[in-house]
């Protein structure tokens, strides 16, 4: 096994820029090398901290101000200067068939998010239970994002509480919580990860997927409660940055929820 550099760990973290066999090699090394695992934990802490660097929220007139400046330019003659280079092929004719297929396959994504919102009983906002009126259809995208942010933030608060109870408990049983509650958290986590992925929030979906094995293991610990607890799992929750990451992501979702709520009145 060749030496694993910090740069390798960064690419491994994002699962990007390394061949599959190298990713497997690093994963195996992390399981067998405490020193490497410690370096990776440090990297994860650092990157989790980035999620706490929240941009300022624009004021409530942001969209109106943008449009006031932008609208006159839309009608103005286009200058002779070339368009800036864009990611899509410059000058390509739109592939209407592929585009239409792409859009059609995206149909129902908002419905999937709203289905999540309607299914789970936790309600911290007055989510509409009736189909949105036609004139507010344009708000469905941001509203679905807001609903998802609310529910996932609530889910992460519960997860944080569960993890804290594991860390702080001195009892011989690992789990002071009800098995059904832990299983429900694990099931919810998978559903929210799927919803986030469908909304295009790859970062959130990826983070929620990292919680899956921990929640499942905690639920399984409860089921076999007569067996001495897995001290390794308790130590992992205690010593890892998992709690910190859960708090950081929850803070980011709360900020997103606040930003979305502020734009609600700016929609025309």
């Amino acid at each position: 096994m060749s030496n694993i550099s910090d740069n390798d760990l960064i690419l491994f973290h994002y699962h990007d820029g390394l061949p599959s066999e190298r990713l497997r090699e690093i994963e195996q090394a992390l399981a067998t090398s405490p020193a490497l695992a410690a370096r990776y934990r440090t990297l994860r802490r650092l990157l989790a901290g980035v999620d706490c660097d929240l941009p300022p929220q624009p004021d409530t007139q942001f969209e109106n101000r943008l449009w006031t400046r932008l609208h006159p330019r839309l009608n103005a003659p286009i200058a002779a200067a070339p368009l800036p280079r864009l990611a899509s092929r410059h000058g390509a004719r739109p592939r209407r068939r592929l585009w239409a297929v792409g859009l059609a396959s995206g149909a129902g994504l908002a419905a999937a998010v709203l289905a999540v919102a309607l299914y789970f009983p936790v309600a911290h906002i007055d989510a509409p239970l009736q189909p949105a009126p036609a004139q507010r259809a344009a708000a469905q995208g941001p509203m679905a994002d807001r609903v998802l942010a609310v529910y996932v933030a609530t889910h992460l608060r519960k997860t944080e509480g569960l993890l804290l109870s594991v860390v702080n408990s001195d009892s011989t049983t690992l789990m002071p919580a009800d098995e059904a509650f832990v299983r429900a958290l694990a099931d919810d986590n998978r559903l929210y990860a799927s919803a986030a992925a469908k909304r295009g929030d790859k970062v959130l979906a990826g983070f929620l997927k990292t919680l899956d094995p921990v929640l499942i293991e905690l639920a399984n610990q409860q089921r076999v409660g007569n067996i001495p607890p897995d001290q390794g799992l308790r130590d992992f929750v205690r010593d890892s940055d998992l709690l910190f990451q859960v708090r950081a992501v929850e803070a980011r979702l709360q900020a997103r929820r606040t930003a979305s709520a502020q734009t609600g009145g700016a929609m025309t």
Partner: protein
Amino acid sequence: MGDSAAQSIALAREGDQQAFRRLVDDHARSLFQLCFRITRDAALAEDAVQEALYNAWRALGEFDGRAAFSTWLYRIAANAALEQLRRNARHRYELTEALSDEDAEADFLAGLADDAPGPEAQASGSQIGDRIGQHMGRLSPAERAAFVMRHCEGERLESIAAALSMSTGQCKQAIFRAVRKLRGALETLR
């Protein structure tokens, strides 16, 4: 992407400005967040969003739907943010940094690794955010843009490289340097 968003895109491509207004309202704030993360300046970020939306309007005919509309917009916005930094005299000197494919820096994570929960585990999110924010300001624009698009937007390296007109190797190095420079945020908390 919901049906209403797809309809707005289709109508905007036909010149419907009210449909484009809906797209502006849907995406403006998230574009601002991306542009702020790159420029670290709220006024420049707003100008970048303005330019990005104008460029998007002009290039709507080139959007072929292979990427998500938001992804397409973010690529335009990232370049608009870098353009704002080029235009702004205060930041112009930061853009002269040459991009390299080669990794000249040694490993650093082991120097920070500590099995015990670090003090950052106890610090509030806002404290850590402030530290990280200070260190993000010390990255070059290219490093910030590449890192933000990878970490915050989840873009693949090849897409980031294409969007920012750099090679994949340069993109990787920019991200490596960004992470290395950000380690100072953890060091100050110890």
